[in-house]
């Protein structure tokens, strides 16, 4: 058959596409369970890392069960919605719903007899989604740990939000001021004052990512204020 005829070109194109599509579909389906499992374990790992439990991905599921006592989903007014599962709730989708229909997951953890409240976060960085978890002490005010991650922030700059030196800055910061009003925690460009309990040093070169992070903390945490004040 003439290699330059139209018929040959069409047949070749169709056969190639079908073979490649089948190959890709096969790869994607076989690897899907493994990938989903990685994502699930990583989420557990991140959640428990905020209360100071260092787990590798394989043991995270077991430790998650051990430390996380309750997984609640809150309505906007702070009451509990039993119909929704906290762990599988997709925060990104929730954000697109009208405020009254949004649900806010919270994890109640217990470690060495102390209670912690772990709040998942979700927002936008400079290039793409950023997310994280923040753990509050039993006073529901002091942060005991934070864990952040991102999809596509600039490596070496904004991407540093998932590094422990940045996450550790949040330890001991407070989300309510002395009058009990909600103020959140901000990443301050140029460095926060040493006695500022509501500010951490932003990352130099990563200002836009840090602004997104500040915004995320404020927007997400404020939804939990009714619950934290009530209980």
């Amino acid at each position, binding site marked *: 058959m003439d*290699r*330059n005829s139209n018929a*040959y*070109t069409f047949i*070749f*194109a169709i056969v*190639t*596409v079908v073979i*490649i599509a089948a*190959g*890709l579909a096969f*790869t*994607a389906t076989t*690897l899907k369970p*493994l*990938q989903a499992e*990685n994502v699930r374990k*990583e989420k557990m790992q991140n959640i428990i890392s905020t209360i100071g439990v260092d787990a590798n*991905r394989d043991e995270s599921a077991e430790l998650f069960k051990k430390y996380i006592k309750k997984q609640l989903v809150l309505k906007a007014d702070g009451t509990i919605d039993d119909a929704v599962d906290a762990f599988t709730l997709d925060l990104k989708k929730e954000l697109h719903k009208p405020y009254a229909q949004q649900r806010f997951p919270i994890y109640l953890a217990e470690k060495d007899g102390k209670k912690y409240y772990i709040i998942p976060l979700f927002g936008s960085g400079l290039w793409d989604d950023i997310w994280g978890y923040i753990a509050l002490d039993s006073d529901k005010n002091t942060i005991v740990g934070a864990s952040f991650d991102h*999809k*596509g922030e600039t*490596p*070496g*700059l904004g991407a540093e939000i998932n590094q422990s030196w940045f996450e550790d800055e949040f330890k001991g910061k407070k989300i309510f001021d002395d009058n009990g009003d909600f103020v959140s925690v901000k990443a301050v460009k140029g460095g926060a004052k040493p006695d500022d309990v509501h500010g951490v040093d932003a990352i*130099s*070169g990563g200002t836009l990512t840090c602004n997104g992070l500040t915004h995320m903390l404020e927007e997400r945490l404020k939804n939990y204020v009714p619950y934290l004040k009530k209980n």
Partner: protein
Amino acid sequence: MAEEKEGLFSKKNISLLTDPLNDDNPITVQVLGICSALAITVQLKPAIVMALAVMFVLIFSNVIISLLRNLIPSRIRIIVQLLIVAALVIIVDQILKAYAYDVSKELSVFVGLIITNCIIMGRLEAFALGNGPWKAFLDAVGNASGYAIILVIIAFFRELLGSGKLFGYEVLGHKGRTLAESTGLYHYGYENNGFMLLAPMALITVGVIIWVQRSRNTKLIEQ
């Protein structure tokens, strides 16, 4: 066919493997694949994984295209090449996500961007379409290694000078909040050069490598 009779490791074949390392380096001589050389060389580890991913894709695509070279209709050859490269890249991405999750997160979008790496399309078009699979294999290994060497050199300097680390380890000492808290070089007032972390410095580093290479290898200098 005299060509087919030559040994597997004849001089000509070996030069396919070694030329791209120096005289015909894809980055410093052909100036291809610069985009990824700038993007993922902030740290050594992602640079090495990226180099391995490019090697995988280049070897397989070069050999596959070389095997199909007498079947591919010339009018759609570029699309066919792209299709095969894209399929291989997706496979790499999926495998990394399943078996090397942390690394795949670090490389994020750059794995997908291997599709647009000019080195790959360049080798397919210039070499694989006209040569047998064994030669295509050697050519792919050679070019991917040439790419890898430059990537590692750039990443070495950028990570060392930009963040004082190598593979994430603080080799120049630890930088504390004050001089007294700092150890190593930082104790004497050394500062990391944040500019090294930005793309322009990667380009300048490539320029310096090209300069050094040409001053040592005079046959590369154009008259």
